[in-house]
């Protein structure tokens, strides 16, 4: 098991460039498919399925942000705003024109991509912290616009209710059914990102990140690729927003506030910048952390405190622990969970002869 690479020699370029260069990895994929498609949904309680569903949605958004921040090196604090653009686009189309999800979903993504390109335009002139502030402005402007334009937000509550997605009369209306719905899109997002980052476009993104001058000199139009990164990233964000909308059955601007942008940045930083697996780890970590903290506090805290006291403390402590853990992880492993995973793997690769 640990010596997976020995005895494997590649004889074609296709084999060397494959997504899973090792034959045994096919089995890993097969096991993952079996676990996620068959075993988990059949055995796990609906409550845990609902957590998995949230993780699937977060994976889509985190992958998108990682393409922009991790691979292309353009910082954005406006990711949640792009989600809201996708969410409200889809909700409006679904409610007003009664369109099915397979139209509203790409439409939400495309609309977010278009807005993303506009918000990303400052990246043509500024980098780093300055760009962060520019995207922050984008976040606040979009938030305000959605909240104050009834034509978009659907009235006083600034929220639009939508029906659960359905396909050929089959409605994804339970956590169980939504699980498959969301798993499908998370899987597509993962494979699409893996393909993107190993292709010509993905390499160009990394080139823009590592050495923008050299990138330009070897023929990469850096302005085009920066905007392309914003467009692709925002497309993911838009799709993520649409998925949230269908999952909750409502598009609400409060789900897409600044703090959510920060959450997503935390995901990719904790998970690992510039890594697909890192985005997945980060999405799992940041989604699970508050839930684990809450469960622990309720169970352990109940031994010492009353219910009311706990309820008061939880929200504050959640943020405290959350922040503390992010700092802890960045000190222990600045390159994120993905790096940790790789270290463990390379340790066992040569285990027990680690010299």
């Amino acid at each position, binding site marked *: 098991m640990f010596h997976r690479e020995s005895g494997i020699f590649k004889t074609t*370029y296709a084999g060397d460039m494959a997504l899973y260069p090792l034959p045994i990895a096919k089995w890993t994929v097969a096991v993952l498919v079996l676990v996620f498609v068959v075993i988990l949904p059949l055995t796990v309680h609906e409550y845990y399925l609902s957590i998995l569903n949230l993780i699937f949605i977060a994976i889509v958004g985190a992958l998108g942000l990682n393409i922009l921040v991790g691979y292309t090196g353009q910082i954005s604090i406006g990711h949640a705003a792009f989600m809201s653009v996708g969410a409200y686009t889809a909700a409006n189309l679904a409610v007003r024109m009664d369109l099915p999800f397979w139209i509203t979903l790409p439409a939400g993504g495309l609309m977010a991509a278009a807005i993303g390109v506009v918000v990303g335009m400052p990246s043509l002139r500024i980098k780093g912290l300055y760009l962060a502030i520019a995207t922050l402005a984008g976040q606040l402007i979009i938030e305000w616009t959605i909240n104050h334009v009834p034509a978009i937000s659907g009235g006083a509550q600034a929220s639009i209710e939508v029906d659960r997605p359905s396909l050929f009369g089959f409605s994804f209306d339970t956590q169980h059914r939504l699980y498959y719905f969301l798993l499908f899109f998370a899987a597509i997002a993962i494979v699409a990102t893996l*393909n*993107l980052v190993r*292709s010509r*476009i993905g390499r160009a993104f990394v080139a823009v990140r590592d*050495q923008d001058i050299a990138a330009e*000199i*070897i023929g990469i139009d850096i302005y085009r690729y920066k905007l392309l990164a914003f467009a692709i990233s925002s497309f993911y964000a838009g799709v993520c927003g649409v998925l949230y909308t269908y999952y909750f059955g409502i598009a609400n601007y409060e789900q897409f506030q600044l703090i959510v942008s920060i959450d997503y940045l935390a995901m990719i930083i904790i998970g690992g910048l510039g890594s697909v697996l890192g985005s997945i780890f980060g999405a799992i970590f940041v989604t699970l952390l508050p839930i684990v903290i809450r469960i622990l506090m309720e169970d352990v805290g109940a031994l010492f405190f009353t219910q009311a006291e706990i309820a008061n403390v939880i929200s504050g402590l959640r943020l405290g622990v959350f922040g503390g853990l992010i700092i802890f992880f960045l000190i222990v492993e600045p390159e994120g969970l993905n790096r940790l995973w790789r270290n463990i793997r390379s340790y066992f690769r040569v285990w027990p002869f680690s010299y």
Partner: protein
Amino acid sequence: MVGESAQRALLREDDNQLVVTGVSKKFGGVTAVQDVSLDVPRGSIVSIIGPNGAGKTSLLNMISGFYKPDAGRVLLDGKDITHKKPSDIAALGIARTFQNIALFSGLTVLDNLMLGRHVRMTAGVLSSVIYWGMAQKEDIAHREAVEEIIEFLKLQDLRKQPTASLAYGLRKRVELGRALASEPKVLLLDEPMGGMNQDEKEDMARYVLDVNQERGVTVVLIEHDMGVVMDISDKVIVLDRGRGIAIGSPDQVQSNAKVVEAYLGVSKGGDRS
């Protein structure tokens, strides 16, 4: 060091691949390059030499489109490229390396070279995302071209190494490979042998000659090592304080009084040793 190759014998005076006419560049009040002209014959090796701050790199930057000249023109195969974007100029067939190596440090040697082929590839977003099919076929075809360069530069065992971990001389070689990968007509080398020891310099000189003779790439290089410059160049231009003070064959330039003055100061007739 070099015999008259058949290709060299064919060089015609009027067949210039790259023509720079009267370019000037000012930064604020400082004149980096003033009214420099240079003809680069097809298939030749042309060296730009001069003391530090003479404007050599600025001249390269104007050819590769990174600086826009205030005056003058740059022609590639008779076509005006003066005001084109650097990325478009790269696509037209001018590649370059940098004085302080500018590799993509997070990527492997292989990926760096594949990036060199960026302008020769066409895969868009959609075919990249789907990958299987068009993009994969393209990647494999270009991988073959890149492997040929890896073999040429003897980088086989470093393919999957991140470039950040390579030794200095190797990084210079990878950068040369990345420039070659784009199948350039003209290769601009900014101090390809800077900071190298004698062995590495000889290797690099060999590679430059091979690139020129076997691949027929026109080479423009900046170099401080006079031995190398005089050995491999067909033509040398000397810059001093932004002006071209001499141009001609290595022998002509070496005996030019202005050049001696720029490098050694005014000769008072005394014995310097």
